[in-house]
């Protein structure tokens, strides 16, 4: 394991250094992150990066492969467009965690702000605490698990994918084009398996989980106006 003190360094400089080191050292310890923005963006390959502290906006954006463990909080847009790998946040995250993410898994052990999983296309997003408003807004695929409570407008304008939550009042907090259905046995197994990977399956009543899914799947058809045919 190699240790890196990045205090005072610019995002571009840090990311360049990570790209250089990751193929050689498979484990990197970051000290004094100073809430740096754009940390570990567009990072490819295999390896583990452990951050002793908090990071800022766009942490792990476009991440493709590595495991990123932040032992503090992260800012807005964590895991933006993430493709593969893992981001584990030991404390809280800001709004828009995992927007448009395509694959991989994000685990937030604390709470999350609003718009978690906005436009998410694939992968898994686990929030152990509470999520803010509009969780999974315009989601196109993937799975969100919220073990705490959700805010208003949950699943608003969702196209595809599923949001599981232990919040028993989720039915009163839904956005448009979503409904709450009981969780299926198969889904229960999948969620249990997913949570067990991160040691989060203890003391969870899986039968209490509710699924938020679209009322109408896929692209919706809207007829805005009918053009007049002025044929001769």
């Amino acid at each position: 394991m190699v240790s890196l003190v990045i205090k005072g360094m610019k995002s571009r400089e840090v990311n360049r250094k990570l790209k250089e080191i990751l193929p050689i050292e498979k484990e990197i310890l970051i000290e004094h992150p100073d809430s740096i923005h754009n940390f570990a963006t567009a990072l490819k390959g295999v390896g583990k990066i452990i951050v002793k502290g908090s990071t800022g906006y766009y942490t792990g954006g476009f991440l493709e492969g590595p495991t990123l463990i932040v032992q503090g909080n992260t800012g807005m847009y964590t895991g933006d467009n993430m493709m593969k790998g893992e981001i584990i946040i030991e404390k809280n995250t800001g709004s828009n965690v995992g927007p448009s993410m395509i694959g991989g898994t994000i685990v937030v052990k604390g709470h999350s702000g609003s718009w978690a999983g906005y436009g998410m296309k694939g992968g898994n997003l686990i929030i152990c605490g509470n999520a803010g408003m509009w969780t999974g807004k315009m989601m196109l695929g993937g799975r969100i698990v919220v073990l705490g409570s959700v805010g208003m407008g949950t699943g608003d304008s969702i196209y595809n994918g599923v949001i599981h939550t232990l919040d028993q009042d989720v039915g009163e907090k839904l956005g448009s084009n979503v409904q709450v259905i009981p969780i299926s046995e198969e889904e229960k197994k999948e969620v249990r398996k997913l949570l067990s990977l991160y040691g989060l399956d203890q003391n969870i009543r899986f039968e209490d989980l509710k699924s938020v899914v679209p009322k109408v799947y896929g692209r919706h058809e809207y007829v805005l106006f009918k053009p007049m045919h002025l044929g001769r």
Partner: protein
Amino acid sequence: MCGIAGMIAKEKLDLGYFLTEMLYQLRHRGKDATGLVIYEDRKDIEIKVAINPGEDYKSLELLISTYGKIYGKISNVRNYLSIGGYTFYEATIDMEYQKITELHKRIDANPCFCVHHLGQKVKVFKDTGDASDLRKHYDLHGLYGTHGIGHVRLATESIENINFAHPFVSYIYPELAIVHNGQLTNYFNLRRKLENAGVQFKTYNDSELIAHFIAYQMKERKKDFEEALRLSLESFDGVFTFLASTNEQIGAVRDKLAIKPILFYEYEEKLYIFGSEQTCMTPVRDDIYAMEMAPGGIRIWSV
């Protein structure tokens, strides 16, 4: 982007220090200007006026002296890149409180001067750059006020100028200050309506309109603070979140689209913190869970 922050301390707290630290944590949201207003527990009426480059302060002093005795000073010239050297006139005035509105309006009517604060409790500090620049130019330690609000600016709607920086005050209702994050899309319509009602504007910043709008509702239409904020939410168009403060209260307003963030944290009815991001609260309280304000919401906290 802009960032806003605020705090009510019911126990003795160095508000100047903590608010500056909070704004420093928000510096990534805008580095064009940083400003804050603190409500002190004092009796004197204080004034601070920015004087345009090359202008003399004698006519200003003459005008103020017609309202009462002055104990004043003039600060050194501060040079701002591409704008020029501004001077700041600060004074304590022994005058009637009821005449503050009139004096404020008369000073602002002169294009060479711009009042930053004039009142019995209010004290405004603003400067270009981030909070570290503010710290460099003002001694903000040991300002034990009751409450305060602050702002970091990313100039989008109007020019970069010290007089266009937040917090904005209104001559109509002395001691009212606002900080704003967002854009008002019906600014010119509302400005025309207010101007027709006799309101005098100083800048082309949409945030100034918020201050005048609320002040107008409270002073001329005799609405209370909450009703004035509710009317502003109904009348304003665009995306906006703002904090408004008076001598006794701080109010937060968020539009129904809720694009611009605002979080608040309450600690045992002793401490209330507001901010655009949770990270700005860390200098005051580490690892807290701040609540987000609902879309289309108004909340008011009393000092």
